C-alpha cells in the first residue's frame, strides 16, 4: 500500500505531512515518558521483524499479492503511539534506502499505516476489554477463554486496520488531481483487494501474537491494563 511519487498532489500531501509531524512529535514525547530502557531491545527486534515481514508478499487473487502492514502487531505489544514511531522508521528506511513509496508521499504513507489504522487497534481494545469473563472457577478454562478472545480480537482488529488504511488510501488517490479517476472507482477497488489482504494480515498477526501469548505472555498487556493510546 506504499503510495509512489506523483500519485498525490500537494494539496493532499502538505496537510498529511503536517498531521504526521504533529502526531509524531506528540508520540515521541509520550514514548520518552513511557518506554523503559529494558524495552529498547525488544522494540528494535520487533521493528526489524515487521520490516522484513512487510517484504514478504502473499498471493491473494489472480496474480495480485498482499503483504503484512504490522501496525496492530506492534501496537498490541507496546502502544499505538510507540507503534506509530516504529512504523515511521520502517517506512522512512523503505523510502530512503529502497525507493519503496515516494519520498514526498512518505507523509501520506505514514498517515495511512500509522494513523488511519487506529480504528483497528480500538476494535481490538474494545473486543478484549468488553468480553465477559467465563463463569468457570477453573483457571485452565479461564485462561483458554482469555486466549480465545485475545486471538479473535487480534484477527478482527488487524482486519479492520487494513480496511481503514485502504479506505483512506482510496480517498487520497481518488481526490488527487494527479489521478484522473474519482473516489467512486478508487474506493471500491481498494476495499475489494484489501478485503482479501486483510485476511492474511489477520492470520499472520494472530499467529505471532498467539506465539507470544504462549511463550512470553508478559509482552501482551492483560485485560484492564491495555493502553488506549500511549
Amino acid at each position: 500500500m506504499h503510495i509512489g511519487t506523483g500519485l498525490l498532489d500537494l494539496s493532499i500531501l502538505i496537510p498529511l505531512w503536517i498531521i504526521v509531524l504533529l502526531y509524531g512529535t506528540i508520540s515521541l514525547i509520550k514514548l520518552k515518558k513511557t518506554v523503559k530502557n529494558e524495552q529498547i531491545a525488544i522494540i528494535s527486534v520487533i521493528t526489524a521483524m515487521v520490516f522484513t515481514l512487510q517484504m514478504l508478499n502473499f498471493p491473494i487473487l489472480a496474480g495480485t499479492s498482499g503483504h503484512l502492514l504490522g501496525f496492530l502487531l506492534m501496537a498490541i505489544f507496546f502502544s499505538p503511539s510507540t507503534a506509530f514511531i516504529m512504523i515511521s522508521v520502517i517506512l522512512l528506511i523503505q523510502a530512503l534506502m529502497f525507493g519503496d513509496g515516494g519520498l514526498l508521499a512518505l507523509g501520506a504513507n505514514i498517515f495511512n499505516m500509522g494513523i488511519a489504522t487506529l480504528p483497528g487497534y480500538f476494535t481490538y481494545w474494545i473486543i478484549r476489554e468488553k468480553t465477559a469473563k467465563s463463569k468457570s472457577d477453573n483457571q485452565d478454562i479461564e485462561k483458554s477463554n482469555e486466549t480465545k478472545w485475545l486471538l479473535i480480537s487480534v484477527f478482527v482488529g488487524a482486519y479492520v486496520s487494513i480496511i481503514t488504511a485502504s479506505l483512506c488510501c482510496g480517498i487520497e488517490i481518488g481526490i488527487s488531481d494527479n489521478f484522473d479517476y474519482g473516489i467512486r472507482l478508487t474506493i471500491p477497488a481498494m476495499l475489494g483487494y484489501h478485503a482479501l489482504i486483510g485476511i492474511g494480515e489477520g492470520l499472520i498477526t494472530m499467529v505471532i501474537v498467539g506465539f507470544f501469548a504462549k511463550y512470553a505472555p508478559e509482552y501482551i498487556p492483560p485485560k484492564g491494563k491495555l493502553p488506549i493510546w500511549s
Partner: protein
Amino acid sequence: MKRENKVVLFTFIFTLILLAAFLWMPMIAGPDGLEQVQSDITGDDEYEPESDFSYNGALFPDYGFLNTENTYIHSWLIGLIGSIITFGLIFGLLKLTLIKRNSKEENTQAVIEG
C-alpha cells in the same frame, strides 16, 4: 520471563526474519493491492504517474542488490541488510531519546539532593 522462553522467543523472531527475507523475492512477482488498483483503473499494467520530483538517492532501488541472478541469495541479503538497518536506526533513536530523559532525571535528582 524464563530463560528458556526468552531463547524460544528470540529464536522465533530471528527465524521469522530469516524466513521472510529468504522467501519474499520469489513471491513478489505479482503487483500489490494498490498497484493492482492503479493498473485496473487506468488499464495500464506499468502505470507510473508523472512527477516533477524524483528521488534517485536510494541505495537499493526496487530492492535491487549487486545485480545478482540468484533471487534467493539476493532476497536473503537484502532482507537481512534492511532488517539490520531498521534495528540500528530504531535502537539508536530510542537510546538517544531515553538518554536525554535519563540525564534530565539525574540533573533533577542532583538539584533536589542539593
